[in-house]
């Protein structure tokens, strides 16, 4: 293990990437694209970038952000200890290096020198400790609480060194610490008035907050004291809210905006044809699933779950709900975009077998079910409607019930027996498994509670050898494929677009990482004050 420790020790970006490969998190490029920062010519400095988002960024409190537009604003204003690069590999942010002990239960992170917050005060280990203590405090109500790893305790060794003690070995901690809510805020704000961060921003990020009008426009400007003097390239970023997808695409085509966070398949086709516009697309692990309560009839019988899985034509589903821009799913959340994806033949629809399984499970005359789909995003309902039709000939008589997202979260989510879920890609296989499918998962929706699966995921956490991990995760995926705790028929490609003159932007498969500090405007960009 000592050799592992040495290999894991990072100093600087280049060494970091090498070590990451050792961890099985090495760089990989889905479309063979070059990394964001490897540009032909030096990026131009200056200019105003207008970026559009499809819903309000109503929460700018970095510990409490929940949706992509909010993650974007938080990422502009704040930094974490680590961050995710374009290919999902971890790279240094405020921390310049890190290393675990031999048991992977104690991790030491060293901060960069001379870090300051936007108000000029220094950012030290004490701020990091205070931040993580706040995230882990249930009273803070931070969504990141269950996603930053099995942290038992965080302490400051000196001004620049932070020690994380974990409850169990965890090889993925540096990735987990790049979580969207793990943004460092000043200790003195946490002590005095943590809620003030809902209205103002004190971070260490590449930009500073200028104005905040949640439903319309958020403006940030360059932070001259950012730790990397070369970045950001832009003077100012304006985040504009366009609640209507069609209007948003029209605005990009007409040049009112320079870059959009995401778009829908129908609009993507139009953007591809528009002149002066570059349509962006990246395969992702974002998925829709049908969750089944594995502890209740009829889904307590795995044959019923498998029968439903066999009724679904996954390739057609990619067309129906993803407009063709996606990958068929095999009932595990690990899409081909993940590091540890396991190749496996796609589950083909087999209605005869599905009927037979259903009959064996005690439903020779079919079964009546109500599937619930929240109204956001609209694809949930589309999936439900499509599944209803596909499963009909197999003997599933499904009533689709839609409801407002708020009611769904309150009454159905994690409680319901049969409903449609929707999730972003996570940074690692471990993150998605332990978020949704292990017995102690934060959001254990299916109550599958499979001990073998739990053991496989737990063991993979303690391994740093890539082949060993791959073997363990392959077994875990096979188990899910066989037992079908939830039907995962489709993964979405992320779609977006930019104007031709926007340089250095790469659509990130995670969906919640943007890296606008690497973005610059080409010579053809319109001059805006």
């Amino acid at each position, binding site marked *: 293990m000592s050799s592992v420790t040495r290999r894991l020790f990072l100093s600087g970006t280049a060494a970091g990437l090498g070590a990451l490969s050792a961890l099985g998190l090495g760089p990989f490029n889905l479309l063979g694209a070059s990394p964001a920062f490897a540009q032909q010519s030096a990026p131009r400095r200056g200019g105003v970038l207008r970026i559009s988002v499809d819903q309000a960024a109503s929460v700018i409190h970095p510990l409490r952000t929940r949706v992509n537009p909010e993650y974007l604003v938080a990422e502009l204003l704040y930094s974490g200890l680590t961050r995710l690069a374009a290919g999902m590999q971890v790279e240094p942010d405020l921390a310049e290096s890190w290393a675990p002990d031999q048991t992977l239960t104690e991790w030491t992170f060293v901060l960069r020198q001379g870090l300051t917050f936007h108000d000029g005060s220094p950012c030290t280990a004490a701020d990091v400790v205070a931040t993580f203590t706040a995230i882990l405090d249930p009273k803070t109500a931070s*969504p990141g609480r269950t996603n930053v790893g099995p942290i038992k305790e965080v302490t400051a060794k000196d001004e620049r060194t932070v020690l994380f003690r974990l409850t169990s070995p965890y090889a993925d901690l540096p990735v987990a610490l790049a979580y969207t809510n793990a943004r460092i805020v000043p200790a003195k704000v946490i002590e005095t008035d943590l809620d003030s961060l809902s209205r103002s921003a004190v971070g260490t990020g590449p930009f500073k907050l200028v104005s905040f009008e949640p439903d319309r426009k958020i403006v940030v400007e360059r932070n001259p004291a950012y730790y990397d003097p070369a970045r950001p390239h832009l003077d100012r970023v304006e985040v504009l809210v*366009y609640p*209507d997808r069609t*209007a948003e695409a029209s605005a990009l085509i007409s040049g*009112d905006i320079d870059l959009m966070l995401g778009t829908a398949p129908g609009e993507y086709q139009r953007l591809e044809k528009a002149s002066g516009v570059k349509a962006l697309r990246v395969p992702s692990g974002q998925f829709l699933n049908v969750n089944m309560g594995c502890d209740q009839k009829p889904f307590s019988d795995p044959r019923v779950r498998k029968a439903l899985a066999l009724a679904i034509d996954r390739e057609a589903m990619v067309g129906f709900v993803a407009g063709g821009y996606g990958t068929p799913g095999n009932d595990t959340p690990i899409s081909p975009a993940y590091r540890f994806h396991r190749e496996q033949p796609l589950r083909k629809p087999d209605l005869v077998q599905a009927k037979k399984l259903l009959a064996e499970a005690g439903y020779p005359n079919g079964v009546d079910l109500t599937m619930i789909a929240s109204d956001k995003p609209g694809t949930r309902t589309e999936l439900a409607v499509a599944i209803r039709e596909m499963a009909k000939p197999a003997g599933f008589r499904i009533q689709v019930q839609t409801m*407002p997202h708020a*009611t769904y979260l309150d009454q159905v989510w994690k409680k319901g027996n049969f409903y449609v879920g929707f999730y972003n890609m996570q940074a690692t296989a471990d993150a998605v498994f332990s978020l949704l499918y292990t017995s102690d998962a934060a*959001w254990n929706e299916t109550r599958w509670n499979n001990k073998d699966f739990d053991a496989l995921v737990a063991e993979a956490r303690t391994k740093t050898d890539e082949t060993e991990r791959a073997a363990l995760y392959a077994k875990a995926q096979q188990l899910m494929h066989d037992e079908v705790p939830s039907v995962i028929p489709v993964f979405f490609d992320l779609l977006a677009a930019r104007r031709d003159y926007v340089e250095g932007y790469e659509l990130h498969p995670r969906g919640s990482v943007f890296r606008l500090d690497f973005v610059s405007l080409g010579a053809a960009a319109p001059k805006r004050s």
Partner: protein
Amino acid sequence: MSASWLLRRLALILYTVFIVSVLVFGITQALPADAAVTLLGENATAEALNAIRERLGLGDPIWWQYLRWVGHAATGDFGLSMRTGQPVGPEMLTALGRSLLLAVAAILVMLVIAVPLGMVAAVRQGKLADMATGLISYLGVSFPEFVTATLLAMLLADTLQWLPATGYVSPLEDFGGAVRHLALPVLTASLILVAHVARMVRSETLDVLHSDYIRAARLKGLPERTVLVRHALRNALLPVVTIVALDVGYLLGGIIVIEEIFAIPGIGRQLMVAVTARDLPSIQAGALIMSATYAVANTLADVAYAVLDKRIRYD
């Protein structure tokens, strides 16, 4: 119109606001799923929910919450939005300003189109112009805003690319941009009004044209144009004041859809957002402000009617 009449009208506004406040508060209390849930999204643990509910004061008895809300609202303090943490009152008033801009523009556009249309139809009763006006009226009142808005946006914004499809630009920042951005919503909002008012103007003008009073004017040998403009128009416009006031009520409802479709951050859209997010303070403030606006507009119309009526009768 006397002082006591005015006082009575003011008392009625207060009564209206009171009834509406009870209604709105009652409804918001009964809403399933509270803001704490939407605020936390998929991270709602029991502890986190309680922490937020405590912070928002959702645990107190209902009558106390009502009194506290009314007391604060009377001083203009509608509390903090559960969604954004910003004060609700100023946010809603800013939004109301944008909505009123839209509403007033729609009414002006409507008047410019509808009054001549109605008059021409009346003068040429039974002729082609009359039939065309009738057709426009029927079509106008039969297309719900969301249909008109969607079709207009499809045609003028997406296909022809003449106008921006959505968004709001403040006229103070960029007047030309504001006009371009307001064009589609104003067109949508004024269409139903045109249909409504053109019909009204037509029927009122017909009434007036058949009255003894106009007959007398004609017998006096006044030119037809003078008869029409000086006498018929002014008398026919009187009831239009009332219908415009009623249409303000329709408009305030209609802008919910129009603002939603054209993404104008007015009070209608803010209300939609608030309802979706179960943001109780915003729903309460928005509904109350909207209803009060309507009540005031109605009263103003009554006052205007009374004033105009006197002049015209003794003309």
